[in-house]
């Protein structure tokens, strides 16, 4: 249960804790159980991280660099500190220990800039004040003397002779194998002989593709509350994707043992990878420990664009060959990801981009290379799809090009080359669970098409809102053409390359008021994906109870790993299932001890817990759970792991690197006004294999949400960085556009359930795959409508009108 401290710290607004769910008829796995936090979320009572409140609290504010690369000659905080209402101003010099950097894999990110800044918006100083506006105004009085340094912004400038080094003295474990210190990591994947195989090709198609920098743009900005403890420690209420990863990075900087940094998940307003790295966590704790007062930090949208990493922009060179009868002969490709100023998740993104570069196709002879750069651009890291998205954009464009050159139907061409169960990946790893690539394409193609251009037949009564451009009433459809495009993608599930990707679950079973109740406690970050719903469904299914309480996620229970990589239902869901199974065995042992002598089935039959009773597999009721447990409680905390993976060889890329793959296919129908350069996506149909849909309602919601993020990057989303200054030009929702309800079409979803025998319940991670293929499907549809080449995201009006 949440302690007294929690209540005090978070009034008003309730913490998203102890979410009880009971009394629903739809309750076990496979049912569309409703969210246990739904009522709080629709009444406005659910306490998101920005809703945290404490009497006597201060507001923290971060001063960020106004330039991308500069030496800091001096910082003068005296005027800021003298401002009425200001309690503390901190710079690098105020950090309490020798540990001054943090990072997910490489500790290269300064808590506060020291000596120099490496990207626009890097945190330089912190202010705590009694009003957010006081803090902002005081921060504006801090005087920083910057001496500008030249910037590196792309591969050419980063690897040019004499290029400035983003990190001068690298000592991380990748530095030994990268060709230049401005390259974070490099992963080649070589299998067969691509050069030799190319000679067998009847057609060879190459292309260069550019994927823009996308932002997660979660709605709830980075925020949280740090409350200093009487023991010298700190309580942190924060929105994150992985409490224990944060803790591992926070505690050393604060100079505190981990047990003195007590973290509780507060309500998370979306994540999509953008909360894997730290943002305000350490800053709030530093200010709280310095002032002795609770400190709340809430980024505004402007700051949020600087406060988290983005999706890696990429340049991709692809060459495919194929025989006359439509078989792919080889793939050569090179993928350059821009990781920006700090490493974040770049090494792992490189691993994914390279190992999934071939897509869901059988190509025996490949020569692949992926690298991530260090540059003075904004840092890039995790975002939904994680390296696989950029590759999918390129290989799907290539598939259409090859099919066209061969005069084949693009879907049939893909099906002809589709991988299946048993296919060997370019990494040498056999695919040992269903891989229904051809079937997903067949399904998405078989869905009925949306009606033809409605305004053509409706005459004067036509609704202009149906046209590209919508309400602006700029056209009556004269220049509008329709196109259809297809794409399919492959995404790995879970953390790869030998990472110990485990989760922990604590499950308690007891009788409360005569009713058996299960309590599930994990550190899983519920970021909107519905994990809390699924955990209750699993507990109900395994323990035969109706009443389940989901405890708040905090660091008093072992790590759950990250809510990312489509892994959380698989891994923490698996941990809950596993712990429930052990709890069930102990409950049955108690039953055998108490009642075993009364009925032989206790010793001989397969026993289940169902409907609050112990029953045999033949359906005979042996006892009520309430009578078995009485005053006893069974309480277990166990770790659970999926099958181990192994790192990719640094030279050949060979290795069983991935746990599981997920697949989705899209069909996009678009209408393009070739005069105005406007695109309206009419429909974006998806077929996806989910292994087993634990909660069909949530599954469809995830697929539609992922599809929409892919649509966004196809036609509107891009963080624009000035190539000369490396400054961000559009850090606002006015200038960085995400799809509205008017931009988003109907998204029919066809869910396929082919169980993966290695996964809990046969499930397959679902969150990311739909983000991969929706972008190339939309691009393919626009190309189909216009005949234009279009090798860059997002497609802008000038690309369509040639202006």
């Amino acid at each position, binding site marked *: 249960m949440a302690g007294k401290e929690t209540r005090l710290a978070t009034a008003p607004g309730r913490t998203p804790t102890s979410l009880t769910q009971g009394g629903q008829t739809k309750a076990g796995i496979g049912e569309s159980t409703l969210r246990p936090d739904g009522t709080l979320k629709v009444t406005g009572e659910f306490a998101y991280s920005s809703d945290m409140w404490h009497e006597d609290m201060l507001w923290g504010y971060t001063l960020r660099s106004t330039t991308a690369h500069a030496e800091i000659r001096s910082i003068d905080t005296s005027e800021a500190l003298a401002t009425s209402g200001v309690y503390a101003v901190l710079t690098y010099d105020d950090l309490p220990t020798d540990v001054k950097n943090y990072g997910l894999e490489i500790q290269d990110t300064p808590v506060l800039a020291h000596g120099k800044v490496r990207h626009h918006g890097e945190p330089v100083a912190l202010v705590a004040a009694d009003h957010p506006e006081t803090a902002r105004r005081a921060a504006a009085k801090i005087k920083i003397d910057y001496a500008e340094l030249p910037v590196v912004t792309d591969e050419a400038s980063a690897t040019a002779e004499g290029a400035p080094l983003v990190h001068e003295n690298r000592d991380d474990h990748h530095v030994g194998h990268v060709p230049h210190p401005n390259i974070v990591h490099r992963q080649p994947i070589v299998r067969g002989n691509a050069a030799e195989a190319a000679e067998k090709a009847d057609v060879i198609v190459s292309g260069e593709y550019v994927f823009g920098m996308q932002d997660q743009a979660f*709605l709830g900005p980075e925020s949280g509350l740090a409350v200093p403890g009487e023991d010298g420690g700190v309580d942190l209420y924060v929105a994150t994707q992985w409490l224990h990863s944060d803790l591992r990075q926070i505690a050393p900087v604060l100079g505190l043992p981990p047990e003195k940094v007590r973290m509780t998940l507060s309500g998370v307003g979306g994540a999509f990878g953008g909360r894997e790295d730290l943002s305000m966590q350490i800053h709030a704790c530093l200010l709280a420990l310095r002032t002795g007062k609770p400190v709340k930090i809430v980024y505004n949208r402007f700051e949020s664009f600087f406060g988290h990493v983005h999706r890696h922009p990429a340049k991709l060179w692809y060459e495919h060959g194929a025989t006359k009868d439509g078989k792919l002969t080889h793939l050569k490709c090179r993928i350059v990801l821009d990781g920006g100023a700090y490493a974040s998740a770049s090494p792992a993104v490189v691993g994914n981009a390279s190992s999934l570069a071939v897509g869901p196709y059988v190509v025996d002879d490949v020569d692949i290379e992926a690298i991530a750069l260090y540059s003075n651009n904004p840092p890039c890291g995790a975002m939904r799809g994680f390296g696989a998205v950029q590759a999918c954009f390129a290989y799907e464009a290539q598939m259409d090009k090859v099919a066209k050159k061969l005069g084949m139907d693009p879907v049939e061409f893909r099906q002809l080359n589709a991988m299946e169960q048993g296919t060997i990946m370019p990494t040498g790893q056999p695919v040992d669970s269903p891989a229904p690539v051809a079937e997903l394409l067949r399904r998405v193609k078989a869905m009925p098409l949306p009606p033809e251009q409605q305004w053509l037949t409706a005459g004067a009564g036509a609704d202009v809102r149906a046209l590209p451009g919508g309400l602006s009433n700029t056209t009556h459809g004269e220049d509008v053409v329709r196109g259809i495009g297809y794409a399919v993608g492959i995404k790995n599930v879970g953390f790869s390359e030998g990472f110990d990707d485990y989760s922990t679950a604590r499950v308690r079973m007891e009788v409360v008021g005569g009713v058996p109740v299960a309590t599930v406690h994990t550190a899983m970050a519920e970021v909107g994906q519905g994990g809390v719903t699924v955990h209750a469904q699993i507990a109900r299914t395994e323990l035969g109870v109706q009443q389940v309480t989901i405890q708040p996620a905090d660091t008093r229970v072992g790590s759950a790993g990250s809510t990312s990589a489509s892994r959380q239902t698989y891994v923490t869901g698996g941990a809950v299932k596993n712990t429930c199974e052990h709890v069930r065995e102990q409950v049955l042992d108690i039953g055998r001890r108490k009642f075993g002598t009364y009925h032989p089935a206790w010793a001989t039959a397969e026993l289940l817990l169902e409907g609050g009773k112990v029953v045999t597999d033949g359906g005979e009721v042996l006892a009520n759970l309430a009578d078995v447990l009485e005053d006893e409680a069974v309480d277990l905390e166990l770790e659970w792991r999926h099958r181990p993976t192994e790192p990719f060889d640094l030279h050949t890329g060979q290795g069983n690197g991935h746990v599981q793959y997920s697949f989705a296919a899209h069909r996009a129908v678009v209408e393009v006004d070739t005069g105005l350069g406007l695109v309206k996506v009419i429909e974006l149909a998806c077929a996806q294999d989910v292994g087993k849909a634990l909660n069909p309602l949530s599954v469809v919601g995830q697929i539609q949400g992922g599809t929409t993020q892919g649509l966004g990057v196809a036609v509107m989303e891009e963080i624009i960085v000035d190539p000369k200054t490396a400054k961000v030009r559009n850090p606002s929702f006015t200038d960085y556009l995400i799809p509205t309800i008017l931009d988003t079409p109907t998204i029919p979803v066809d869910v396929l359930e082919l169980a993966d025998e290695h996964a809990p319940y046969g499930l397959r991670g679902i969150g990311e795959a739909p983000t991969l293929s929706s972008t190339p499907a939309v691009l393919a549809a626009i190309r189909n409508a216009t005949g234009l080449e279009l090798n860059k995201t997002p497609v802008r009006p000038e690309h369509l009108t040639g202006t």
Partner: protein
Amino acid sequence: MRVTFTVNGRRQEADDVWEGESLLYVLRERMGLPGSKNACEQGECGSCTVRLDGVPVCSCLVAAGQAEGREVVTVEGLADFARQRAESGGCASGACGTSIDEAQRWQARPADSQTGEGAELSPIQQAFIDAGAVQCGFCTPGLLVAADELLERNDSPSDADIREALSGNLCRCTGYEKILDAVRLAAARGEHRTAGQGA
């Protein structure tokens, strides 16, 4: 300065309000009503949508002083607002004010201390839960206020009407399909049949 206005049928006062503070800030930080969300504070995302004398507005763009003496409805008051509207036969925007008598009798409804189960919900709130339109939920309060206002004006909106009415509200999780479902569901159920019946 001091600002006084009615929030969800109740007179509220805030002292020492700085002239630059938004209605959103005063609601969230001074009046203890954090239901309206702060996602962009630029009027672009609609997360902070409240009704000001019946009209949906981005409360981040309204200076607190502009609300002086006026009626504000936030997501926290939506169930009560819908109930009163149903009881009075569905009055038009702005005319749904709370009588002094009602305001004096107003009290927070008892609800389950942890989950809110048992809370009385408006039809649109219930429909959002039933249709799976809530994921992270950060956009939900603003969408609910906007959707409720739409249904007050138009009890059987077309999809194009719904899209137009909700086009000022960004959602990053759902892809909007289930939000459309929720509004269609609430319209199909009709307020007169579900208002006041709760979860």
